[in-house]
């Protein structure tokens, strides 16, 4: 900044210790507005249509077909069996919930800790949360078998006084996931209101003006409105931060409450939170690296932002590695023969050993490459690592769920598990639905929160001397 005098300059920390400025450019407010809404107002590019048709096929053909088939015929069309009564349905549920968590961590927790660099990626991450919780929420609903009895899960007064049974963590899970969906959608929508007003004011056609205007709720941007809005944003991010730690903890308790060796562990709530965030950071990178290029936002979502997310991924992956080792240690140290069996067979058994090695080699070890700065700055490499990390985290849930169930206490019960085409179809369908919703989001809503970015840009600083006002055009 030009206004720092030489004496202040000497007091400032060296360049490598300085905080990343929230917005890398010193540009006018109008420049930011035009830049960040350009993709929403421009012509729809070809890549968007291609991506949309592919993902929409998953969302509107594969997903409904497999869902209707599964609901009308029954759980038997899945690969679930005895003893593996939880299969891809719960693996995918835990995976999707996990993807959601990094979004909330970025949008809410980094806001509370005043990490201003998160401003530019906050909304994109929160959108990821909303859409992936939707996908996660689908699975428990269909996993119960008779999906038309899903209303049993909610405390609805009926003549037979049939109430939910609150002594089970599975019941808590119903409340946690639904709360997560409602709170993350509310947080995301509230953050959108000022930008919807911006889109309304810029709209050229009547349809756009009406729709953006309808959802902007008549926002004027008065100081009184901003005053209440900022307070509400702070409170909501505090509440959403609680959910980062709560929802996956409760998912972990679903497992820890069972007697199965490999599930019955006190570390599970924390384990699931760490796993969720690791996986979610992988998904953030997978989404943002192509989109910043395709939506021409390289000046806004810079390499420095990618670098920060890589470092967070590295930290979470290291925590994962530590937890994996603790699990193995406890399995040996407890002297419990069933635990020792499960964990020994995880690495050296005969059926699903690949999963155990994927956990150690991909989830815990591969992100260690992020220690190297040149790796963090090579976008192709970061993308590949993040993509593989997502797959690895999926296998972690496979190992925990199937790997613990297929050989339980009685050898006479042992069995193996293979997914059927319906399992795969439902998962491919949810992937399609997730990416379709995300493509619609980046096309019709500003992916980067325009008002927040303008609020942290150098020109918003009211103490800035008039001489440097304006910066670059």
């Amino acid at each position, binding site marked *: 900044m030009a206004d720092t005098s030489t004496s202040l300059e000497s007091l400032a920390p060296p360049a490598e210790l300085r905080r990343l400025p929230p917005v890398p450019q010193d540009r006018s407010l109008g420049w930011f507005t035009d830049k960040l809404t350009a993709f929403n107002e421009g012509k729809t590019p070809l890549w968007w249509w291609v991506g949309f048709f592919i993902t929409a096929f998953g969302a509107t053909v594969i997903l409904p077909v497999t869902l209707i088939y599964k609901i009308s015929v029954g759980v038997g069309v899945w690969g679930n069996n005895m003893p593996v009564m939880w299969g891809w349905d719960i693996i995918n549920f835990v995976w999707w919930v996990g993807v959601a968590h990094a979004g909330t961590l970025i949008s809410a927790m980094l806001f509370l800790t005043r990490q201003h660099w998160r401003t530019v990626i906050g909304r994109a991450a929160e959108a990821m949360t909303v859409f992936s919780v939707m996908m996660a929420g689908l699975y428990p609903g269909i996993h119960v078998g008779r999906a038309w009895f899903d209303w049993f899960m909610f405390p609805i007064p009926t003549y037979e006084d049939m*109430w939910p049974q609150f002594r089970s963590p599975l019941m808590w899970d119903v409340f946690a996931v*639904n709360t997560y969906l409602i709170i993350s959608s509310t947080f995301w929508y509230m953050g959108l209101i000022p930008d919807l*007003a911006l889109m309304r004011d810029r709209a050229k056609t009547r349809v756009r003006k009406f729709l953006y205007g309808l959802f902007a709720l008549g926002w004027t941007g008065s100081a009184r409105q901003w005053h209440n809005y900022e307070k509400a944003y702070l409170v*909501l991010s505090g509440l959403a931060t609680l959910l980062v730690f709560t929802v996956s903890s409760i998912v972990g308790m679903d497992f820890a409450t069972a007697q199965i060796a490999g599930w019955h562990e006190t570390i599970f709530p924390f384990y699931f939170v760490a796993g969720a965030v690791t996986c979610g950071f992988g998904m953030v990178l997978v989404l943002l690296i192509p989109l910043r290029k395709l939506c021409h936002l390289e000046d806004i979502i810079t390499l420095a932002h990618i670098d920060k997310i890589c470092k967070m991924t590295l930290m979470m992956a290291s925590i994962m590695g530590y937890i994996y080792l603790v699990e193995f240690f406890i399995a040996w140290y407890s002297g419990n023969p069933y635990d020792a069996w499960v964990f020994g067979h995880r690495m050296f058994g005969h059926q699903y050993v690949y999963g155990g090695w994927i956990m150690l080699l991909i989830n815990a070890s591969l992100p260690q490459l992020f220690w190297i700065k040149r790796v963090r700055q090579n976008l192709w490499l970061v993308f590949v690592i993040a993509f593989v990390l997502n797959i690895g985290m999926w296998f972690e849930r496979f190992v925990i769920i199937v790997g613990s169930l297929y050989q339980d206490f009685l050898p006479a019960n042992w069995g193996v598990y293979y997914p059927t085409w319906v399992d795969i179809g439902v998962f491919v369908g949810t992937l399609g639905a997730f990416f379709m919703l995300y493509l619609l989001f980046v096309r019709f809503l500003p992916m980067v929160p325009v008002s927040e970015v303008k609020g942290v840009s150098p020109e918003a600083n*009211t103490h800035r001397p008039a001489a440097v006002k304006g910066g670059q055009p």
Partner: protein
Amino acid sequence: MSETNYGIAAEFDSAADVLRAAEKVRDAGYRRWDVFSPFPVHGLEKVMGLGNSRVGWFAFLFGAGAFIGTMLMIWYMNDFDYPIVIGGKPMFSTPMSVVPSYILLVLFAGIGTFIGMIALNELPRHHHPLFAKKRFALVSRDKFYLVIGSNDPQFSESVTRKLLEDIGGQHIEIVEDK
């Protein structure tokens, strides 16, 4: 005159300008005025004397109500109305009920925060006198509006217009209340 007018609006170019103008409007003794900006201008809440937003109270009351309500609901359902022994666990106990109560605290406090924000901001309100002004559409982009309401006890079309001119406002115009 003032019955048909909403107020007088002046346009400013930067957050710093509008903040200094707001200080002068306050010093001139006006009470019913507001600043419209594309992002929250920090410092304005002090100049306007807005105090602490009451949104926090909505969050607290909704959250506390939900926590107590859920505890009571679980006790009623699992212990009073239809008790069933499951695994020899107690019918009602703190560990089983705190987790769902806490989750619903978060849920209702969040909903309460949103409702509070909407209610305190008097939204949704799809019509506003300022929307009739063409240049007001620039406020969400890069302009700043300072509007002195005609319901201000000190409001006078000529004097107020003069004040806005003196403090550097541009495109000063009457906002009709329609």
